[in-house]
């Protein structure tokens, strides 16, 4: 009973409209983030005309880069119905490893790869613990958050890496733009590349679709022969590696790392992912949404000082956005459920 592929125009029973409703509601999230972002940019520019200068745009993009990288990795983990709270600690320790190696006269490219490698290693650890331990990821990665931070503190001690004892080429890589003076820095290109590659993998490769499948219904995924454990480990490895890369880039951007670098970062990352429409229940959302969420959060943080608002408000505003995002998700889910239920009832 092989399938012959032919073009058949299947009639639909009002299902197209339902599909359209669902589609629109989903896309609404990405569009509304872009909308909010544009409004905020315009308002800020009106209040402070220097805000969107070449340098201003460059700063805006640079600030978002590191969060975008980590959010992309986190999004993949959240799509599998898990979470990685250790990303802040991984970022910190990878940044220090990179700096320490550069200190001792290491090559810049090898240093970045070292950062990625450190992150990857912790990703493997997280992945194994979550998939083999059958303990909720929230608890496991809360544990590794503290463990990695502890290792970091013992290793770093009171040492500190500053821009002055890093190679000049490395620092300028963290600041310079393509073609020297344009508004698009190299770091941004890296983040965009990571986002597009991961996004395309999730969309157009079997392994990527299986990540959505297992987050959507783990039991069904197992019955469909999806290698659930391997995919979850891979998601954590990717998330760790991106956090490691983000750590190396953090060093290039800020030139300053100590034992506290990246503390509390996991909360910003998780907020960005959720604001970007990646549902905590797994199986839905995209890395593009997560990246947009990251851009929105960092932009707000850059705008506040420009508007003369105290940065004290930063955290409160992040939290407020998170609550709005969750409320919107819930309302949309209920709406979709009602639409589908009505349709199903009509059809029956």
């Amino acid at each position, binding site marked *: *009973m*092989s*399938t*012959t*592929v*032919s*073009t*058949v*125009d*299947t*009639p*639909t*029973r009002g*299902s*197209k409209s*339902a*599909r359209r409703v*669902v589609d629109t509601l989903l896309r609404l999230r990405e569009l509304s983030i872009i909308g909010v972002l544009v409004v905020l940019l315009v308002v800020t520019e009106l209040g402070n005309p220097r805000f969107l200068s070449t340098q201003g745009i460059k700063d805006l993009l640079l600030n978002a880069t590191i969060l975008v990288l980590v959010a992309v990795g986190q999004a993949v983990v959240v799509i599998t119905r898990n979470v990685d709270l250790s990303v802040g600690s991984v970022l910190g320790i990878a940044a220090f490893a990179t700096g320490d190696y550069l200190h001792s006269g290491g090559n810049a490219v090898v240093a970045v790869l070292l950062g990625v490698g450190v992150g990857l290693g912790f990703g493997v650890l997280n992945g194994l613990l979550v998939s083999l331990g059958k303990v909720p990821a929230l608890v496991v990665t809360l544990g590794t958050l503290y463990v990695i931070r502890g290792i970091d503190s013992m290793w770093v001690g009171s040492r500190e890496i500053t821009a002055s004892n890093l190679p000049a080429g490395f620092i300028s890589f963290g600041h310079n733009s393509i073609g020297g003076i344009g508004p698009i820095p190299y770091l941004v290109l890296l983040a965009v590349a990571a986002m597009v590659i991961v996004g395309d993998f999730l969309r*157009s*490769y*079997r392994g990527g*679709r*299986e990540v*959505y*499948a297992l*987050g*959507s*219904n783990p*039991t*069904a*995924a*197992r*019955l*469909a*022969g*999806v*290698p659930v454990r391997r995919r979850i480990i891979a998601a954590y490895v990717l998330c760790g590696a991106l956090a490691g890369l983000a750590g190396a880039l953090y060093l290039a951007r800020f030139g300053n790392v100590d034992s506290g670098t990246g503390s509390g970062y996991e909360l910003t990352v998780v907020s960005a992912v959720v604001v970007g429409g990646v549902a905590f229940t797994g*199986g*839905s959302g995209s890395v593009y949404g997560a990246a947009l969420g990251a851009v929105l959060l960092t932009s707000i943080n850059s705008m506040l000082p420009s508007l003369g608002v105290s940065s004290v408000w930063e955290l409160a505003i992040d939290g407020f956005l998170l609550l709005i995002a969750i409320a919107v998700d819930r309302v949309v889910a209920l709406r*979709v*459920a*009602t*639409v*589908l*239920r*009505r*349709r*199903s*009832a009509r*059809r*029956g």
Partner: protein
Amino acid sequence: MGERDPVIELDAVSKSFGSVRALSDVSLGLAGGEVHGLAGENGAGKSTLIKLLAGVHQPDSGTVRLGGEPVVFHGPADARDAGVAVIYQEPTLFPDLTVAENIFMGRQPRTGPRRIDRSAIRTATAALFARLDVAMSPDEPARGLSIADQQIVEIAKALSFDAKVLIMDEPTAALTGSEVARLFGVVRALAEQGAAVLFVSHRLAEFFQICQRVTTLRDGRWIATEPLTGRTEDDLVQRMVGRSLDELYPKQDTEPGAVALAVRRLTREGVFTDVSFDVRHGEIVGLAGLVGAGRSEVARAVFGVDRWDAGSVEVMGRALSPGSPTAAMSAGLALVPEDRRAQGLVMDMSIDRNIALPGLRAPGRGGGNKSLSRFGLISRTAERSRATDWAIRLRLKFGRLADAVDTLSGGNQQKVVLAKWLATAPRVLIVDEPTRGIDVGTKAEVHRLLSRLAAEGMAVLMISSDLPEILGMADRVLVMHEGHLVAEIARADATEQSVMAAATGRVPA
């Protein structure tokens, strides 16, 4: 038929889960071109047998053979790659993905550098739907599909790869008459092309329509494998239960009293519509229908777990407010839910605590039932004495009352759920699938208990998918079809045919 070498066979396989022996020493061979029936009561081991063939479980002893060669399926993917397709009783779809993606998950056609070919997936899905003659869009999300449509997607999934063996676990349970006819057409065509089909159903008549041979299991053991020509449904029932129906369903005749539960024009949009019925003291009313007809949903709404959009519910003349289980309980209503593990029990809590749980709050108005707590503190003594009382009345088999409910067998767990609700001294008892997945002996005990409760004046509403149970126990049978109450059949007129006809929508409301 059936004399050819089997495509796949189980040779003397056994499988236990913990202390429960699900299958012992069962052999079964499926031949190409044959539709083989698998009959047995709930809990007879059919699902376990299917999961062995599907690679979900591995046998503790015995072998699986594929084309004569012993094989070990390490997982569902192994079985699928060997050409075994399984349609499970509970559809296993990914709600967030489209129908087309659901069908081709893990086997997506790819272009050049391993990229998924989306348009090929879509056209292939459309072709499958055309072949099955269903009007569904490949781009539709699986979330919100009706059970029947989900089942169709599962069938399309099985069709989508070159399966040599097709296993169907109650595929017709949620389908209407015309959908069943269409499915049978597809199944016959597949068998003619040489596929071996294993067909599981609770509707015995279907075996005679589509199968050549049938294998019967009882309590995890092989009873018979025989051609169907010259057999009757009664023969099959005899093999399945091993005794006659009269012994199993000891319903005492009672004189129904006043109306205890009155449901009027109850509606929950998209789920059930305009449902009205009465249940009187002293009678057992059966609520029959196919899976997904809305029976459990009505029960949940009456008990206040779900809200209703329109209509009313009265218990002994008192109107209930919607969406409040507390109000329902204090009016004297009890609901023994379908899924006892998820909804009925706290699995790792002790037996006595489980039984005492609903009695912790204010006493039921309906009965002379004392609350177990004083000033918010729970009396352990009162808790234990109530539990002991009910454990004895229900003939519960247990080590100690302090043992976790987990340690009990399915049948005994069901008794604990019953005890838990009976301990609140309800006047109206709603039981949802009270004997699903429990052994024949315990089943009879549960039936005797329900019968005695009715004789003592309790009003019982019994939801069941088990037709013999409905026919044997109910004084009246209500039948639901796709969210509507379509028939009310008196005990004397209730037959397997009349109930099934209404349940599949062949009787106009």
